[in-house]
């Protein structure tokens, strides 16, 4: 199962859009850096229902409150996510 990592704001470019087009049920999505803005309104940005994570540090830095359904994680949990998934795909810019 793939771990998708997005770092771009949802409307700032095509990274999230491209990622969701390759998202398969059972995959996980991690929002980091500017992508945490998508975590404020997951349904608006058509995020999948399950396995959605956001980096807490990046959300806090931006004053972003994670909506229900998005799980905030720290860097240690991020490493665990990487261990549990393969491949890891980064979607950026």
């Amino acid at each position, binding site marked *: 199962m*793939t771990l998708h990592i997005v770092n771009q704001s949802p409307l700032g470019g095509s990274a999230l859009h491209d990622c969701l087009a*390759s*998202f*398969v049920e059972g*995959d996980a999505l991690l929002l980091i850096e500017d992508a945490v803005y998508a975590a404020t309104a997951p349904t608006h940005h058509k995020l999948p229902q399950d396995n959605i994570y956001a980096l807490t540090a990046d959300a806090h830095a931006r004053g972003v409150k994670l909506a229900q359904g998005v799980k905030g994680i720290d860097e240690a949990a991020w490493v665990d996510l990487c261990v549990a998934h393969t*491949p890891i*795909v980064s*979607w950026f810019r």
Partner: protein
Amino acid sequence: MANSILALCRHAPYGNTLAREGLEAILACAAMDQIPAVLFTGDGVYQLLEQDPQAINEKSLRRNLQAMPMFGIEQIHVCEKSVAARGIATDTLQLAGAELVLLADTGAFIRDFDQVLSF
């Protein structure tokens, strides 16, 4: 067993260096006998169109791409939806010496690999 490697190319040529540096990495992997699968998706499909960048003093990325078969990469995968979303006719996408495979489900394709290099 060495890992299977996918190179995911989703940036247009010339606007930033990722398209060119991605190709260089792909060719380097192939030269090392770690032949990666290659998938063009998103704006990356623009790399496959005719190009004439002489007037902007750039080398042709498409010419460079055509070297892939020489490095042992004989199949190129292309996201069908990305092509359609950009109003590109699929028959304009051709790369001499390589077989172009249109993918309807990129997600199912991606999850079969061990490692993904994103460019």
